[in-house]
């Protein structure tokens, strides 16, 4: 009797959950991965917000920009979010500071400073953090749904 009953339940419930819920977890995990990659870039930008050149007229640190894109995951064939590329910000101009004694000072005595704005980076960091938390919450929910489906077998 027990066997028949569990068989009935397995037939009626298992093909339903496994694929889609693991896809949900996969999507959220991809989201978390990209957000942590984004966080890494933001940390690099903040850490290098004072990195100037070392020779006269040399370029300082140029702000990095990360872009996200949906790509096919070769393992599962699903479209998941991934890092598209990490480029440099060529639009925002460098700021300059008058400091003739600096090794990177040009002929007029100005030193170029990185084009990193701490406000922008902080905002990006907050946004990234929120997205990461949302993904984490989604994983928690998917996992609970999965576990409850398994509980049906008891």
């Amino acid at each position, binding site marked *: 009797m027990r066997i028949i009953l569990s068989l009935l339940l397995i037939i009626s419930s298992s093909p339903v959950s496994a694929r889609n819920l693991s896809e949900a977890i996969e999507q959220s995990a991809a989201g978390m991965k990209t957000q942590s990659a984004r966080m890494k870039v933001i940390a690099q930008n903040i850490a290098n917000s004072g990195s100037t050149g070392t020779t006269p007229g040399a370029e300082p640190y140029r702000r990095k920009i990360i872009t996200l894109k949906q790509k096919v995951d070769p393992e599962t064939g699903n479209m998941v979010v991934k890092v598209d590329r990490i480029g440099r910000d060529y639009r925002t101009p460098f700021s300059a500071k008058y400091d003739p004694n600096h090794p990177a000072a040009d002929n007029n005595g100005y030193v170029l400073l990185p084009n990193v704005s701490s406000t922008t980076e902080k905002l990006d960091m907050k946004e990234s953090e929120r997205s990461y938390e*949302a993904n984490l919450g989604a994983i928690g929910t998917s996992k609970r749904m999965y576990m409850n489906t398994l509980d*049906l077998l008891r």
Partner: protein
Amino acid sequence: MQKIMKKLAAFIISIFVFPALSCAEDSVFTDMKKHLSYLNQRQALISKNIANADTPGYKTLDLAPIKSQKSPRGISLAGTSPMHITHHKAGNNFQTVRDGSPDTAINGNDVVLEEEMVKMSQTDMEYQKTLSLMRQMTSLVKVAIGDQ
């Protein structure tokens, strides 16, 4: 005496339960299974929306609500193989629809994180509800076959 009463109760319940399971093409379990499948797919889509909350040009997706199918009148064909033609539509393909907010961000993304969280908890609640219904049905069957 108590044993006989117990068996009688089981028999009566089995009369009520088994027609629902066998004759009506175990419609209760089939419907619940379909609903679970719908909720699972929806959860996957919502997860995708949340994961793509910062992807440029991404448009929010959702599943169209399930339409209640009218049960066919009279006797329907039994489908014991996926190749058989029955009134049930084959597969669990639910329609995907766009569900973005009108205020699209500058990068073309229209995911609202809060709305997705609300949708997700709705899906979760529905899922728990259906599962507990399923558990109830199972315990009914258990009573009917005298395996308590």
